[in-house]
């Protein structure tokens, strides 16, 4: 799937044509007006009935963001299931699955062993599984899938795999280039494809063994999935799932006109109400936060790296202490969010030591201690330099812009003059080497934590914001090399805070995390969406991870 960010919540420059905000307001105002004029019983169900011929209680129509559509199709090699939107591939089976608490469970796998050096994984699989074309799924197909993806995969990373081998019908062995303890998290999003029916056209005509079959794909519009009648697990309760891809305002129009059963929406729409629908708010690890360059300013290869103000750890701690997350959630997200303390809140590898509350007195004390004395105009100064910071945000992403503005306001309280500036993704990565940028992360794998905090070989600094700590690097390397997944969680936690050092408030704090953004949906009354896993970054396919367990109460 093309890994784009999300309309509304996470639009960035990647959003396609953006109808100007003013026009959206006109539209919304109009919609409000029409809603106000309508009688209570005047729900336009006629439209729904006319448009949707599946009136049985085992079908559902879901609206996703326009960029959730996998342009290159349902081929695991080109990001189906992985990448920007991590989710279960539905059409294909996977070796493992992530449980609601994001620990690892089994799908095709029945058992799994890792060698002491972490270089050899042996997985046994079920022998009662067939592809929807009737052919049996064997270890040979698993090996074929992984070997193929190692060569062709776009966003899902298989560079740590040397070779996959089928030892017999039901046993497959993975030989690794380097130890990779979180391999089961890769397995959880890698759909197994049939060796006999895989080719360039697979993306448009996928054959799998998962809960659903691709019935129809009208590109640019909708995907129709139908339950796999021979599925080896519990039979899906929803027999037919139609997924529409629409922009935010079109999605809202689809709800207003009763054409969708469930549609994504953004916090800006939450003060509206729609007859026959209620708002579903899903907890996420879809976080927003900013980086604080932890080294002094210097020029390197024509780029500016580091920031003299934030290079002082006391300043970074003060900034973190000055942030009132609850207030930010109320101001920016209409209350639909939770405070974020790390890039991986509530994941099995999250260290709760990261939790911190706002303390502006302590922040002022730290700034005083660092030599930043309050000036007459309410801005701190040191050696004639004012305490200034510019917060960057991806232009066009209204939520990140608002978070940047709220952060700037809050920092004013402790005497830091912060301004905000919009930027594009093409330059944002470079600019963030010297200034804080409002980022959004949140993956179902610790690899993200690694890439944010671990140093790179050639620069000795982390990739997205200059920072480095050898001790924490060692914990992370050890965690990846660890043969036992449970044990590796502990090492990931240590990399966050080991009692002495870490990336939390008491540690180096090179990143400050602000909020986890709830994913919001309009849901037609009577539709029960089963228990949702913590959604990762991306307002897309995660919602239908468990669509097979959704139900309608008696009357639709």
């Amino acid at each position, binding site marked *: 799937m093309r*890994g784009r960010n999300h309309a509304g919540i996470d639009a960035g420059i*990647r959003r*396609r044509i953006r*109808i100007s905000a003013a026009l959206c307001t006109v*539209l919304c105002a109009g*919609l409000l007006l029409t809603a106000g004029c309508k009688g209570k019983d005047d729900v336009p169900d006629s439209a729904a009935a006319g448009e*949707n011929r599946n009136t049985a209680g085992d079908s559902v129509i879901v609206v996703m963001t326009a960029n959730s559509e996998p342009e290159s199709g349902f081929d695991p090699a080109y990001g189906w299931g992985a990448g920007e939107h991590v989710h279960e591939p539905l059409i294909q089976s996977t070796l493992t699955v992530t449980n609601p608490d994001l620990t690892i469970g089994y799908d095709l796998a029945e058992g799994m062993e890792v060698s002491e050096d972490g270089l050899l994984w042996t997985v046994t699989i079920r022998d009662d599984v067939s592809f929807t074309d009737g052919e049996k799924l064997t270890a040979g197909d698993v090996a074929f899938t992984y070997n193929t993806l190692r060569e062709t995969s776009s966003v899902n990373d298989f560079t740590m795999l040397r070779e996959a081998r089928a030892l017999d019908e039901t046993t497959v062995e993975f030989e690794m280039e380097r130890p990779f303890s979180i391999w089961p998290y890769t397995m959880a999003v890698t759909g197994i494809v049939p060796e006999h029916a895989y080719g360039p056209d697979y993306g448009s005509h996928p054959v799998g063994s998962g809960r659903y079959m691709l019935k129809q794909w009208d590109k640019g519009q909708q995907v129709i999935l139908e339950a796999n009648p021979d599925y080896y697990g519990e039979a899906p309760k929803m027999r037919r799932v139609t997924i529409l891809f629409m922009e935010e305002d*079109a999605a809202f129009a689809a709800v207003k006109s009763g054409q969708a059963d469930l549609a994504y929406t953004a916090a800006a729409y939450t003060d509206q109400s729609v007859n026959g629908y209620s708002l579903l708010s899903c907890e996420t690890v879809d976080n927003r936060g900013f980086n604080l360059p932890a080294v002094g300013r210097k020029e390197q290869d024509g780029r500016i790296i580091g920031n003299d103000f934030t290079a002082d750890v006391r300043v970074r701690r003060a900034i973190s202490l000055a942030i009132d997350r609850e207030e930010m959630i109320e101001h920016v997200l209409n209350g639909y969010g939770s405070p974020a303390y790390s890039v991986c809140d509530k994941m099995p590898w999250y260290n709760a030591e990261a939790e911190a509350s706002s303390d502006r007195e302590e922040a002022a004390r730290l700034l005083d201690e660092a030599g930043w004395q309050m000036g007459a105009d309410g801005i701190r100064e040191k050696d004639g330099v004012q305490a200034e910071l510019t917060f960057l945000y991806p232009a066009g992403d209204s939520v990140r812009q608002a978070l940047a503005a709220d952060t700037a306001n809050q920092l004013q309280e402790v005497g830091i003059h912060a301004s905000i500036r919009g930027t594009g993704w093409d330059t944002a990565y470079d600019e963030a080497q010297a200034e804080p940028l409002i980022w959004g992360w949140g993956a179902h794998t610790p690899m993200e934590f690694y*890439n944010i905090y671990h140093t790179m070989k050639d620069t000795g600094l982390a990739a997205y914001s200059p920072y480095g700590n050898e001790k924490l690097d060692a914990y992370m390397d050890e965690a990846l090399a660890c043969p036992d997944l449970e044990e590796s969680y502990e090492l990931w936690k240590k990399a966050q805070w080991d009692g002495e050092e870490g990336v939390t408030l008491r540690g180096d704090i090179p990143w400050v995390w602000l909020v986890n953004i709830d994913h919001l949906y309009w849901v037609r009354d009577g539709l029960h969406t089963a228990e949702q896993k913590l959604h990762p970054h991306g307002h897309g396919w995660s919602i239908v991870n468990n669509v097979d367990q959704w139900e309608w109460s008696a009357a639709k």
Partner: protein
Amino acid sequence: MGKKAGGYIVKNFIRMLTFLLAVSAASFFLLSLSPIDPLKSNVGQAALGTMSEEQIARLEAYWGVGIPAGKRFLAWLSGVLRGDLGISLLYRQPVLSVIREKAANSVWLMGAAWLFSGVLGVFLGTAAGAKKGKWQDKAITAYCMITAGTPAFWLALLLLLVFAVQFPIFPIGFSVPVGVAVSEVTLSERLSHAFLPALALGLTGVSNIAMHTRSKMIEIMESEYVLYARARGERGWPLILGHGLRNLLLPVITLQFGSISEIFGGSVLVEEVFSYPGLGQAAITAGLGSDVPLLLGITLISAALVFLGNLTADLLYLAVDPRMRRERRKEAERRNTHGGR
């Protein structure tokens, strides 16, 4: 005559080829100047965050990061000369098959809008010109002034709001009904899905045609032959049709075929509003996603379309206006007698 028309077409065909070459070279180099980093704009930040450096390097190779623009252009051009427009980087399918798929949807939409704006434009323009200064003229002119200043996508939003949300007569978007298998989609459903977008495009396209037709009509109505016809007692539509229409057709044909580019441009935005999966949407996706082969493919096809539109207008001139045919013949004869063999 046939031979000469043939020569005319061949000459124009060569002109078109050089034109397309220039268009593709220009757009390619504009694209290569674009600051969009394909990797950073296509692979989201969260996806990049879970990748190893090695994987990032592989993706950069796929997107052609670091290969000089000139080299990439020559590679692309040599493919095109062999009839291969390349593979779309985003869709991972041959560019031609992506375009074919999207164009199949757009053809309905643009064709309907084009006919609608042409027919209605001529009708309104003729009526306004014939009734110059009367209330009909004022009403039509006012309407044209308003729509001329109305962006198609705004009108599209308005139509969507009124006819799909407030009064759900038409679907809110897409080219096919929701949740219905292809085999069950009826023609009338397709038409009802294309109706609002086509209307939005057509309505805004009307004003240009109507206003030009109107001024030409006024000119005709003031001409001596109309005065003469009036003196003989001809009135109303028979007068307009008998003496006005053929003279009107010349500017209308130019405008109508020239408006192909406008319809195409407008459709980009209108398709976006109605989530209509046509060429316009594909162009946006390709542009923002640095899918160079696809964007160039669409550019080539649309440039060719516009060029062919203008060529058709030229050829139709000959059919409509006998004076031009005569001039052409005279010119040819002159050349033959003076130039010799």
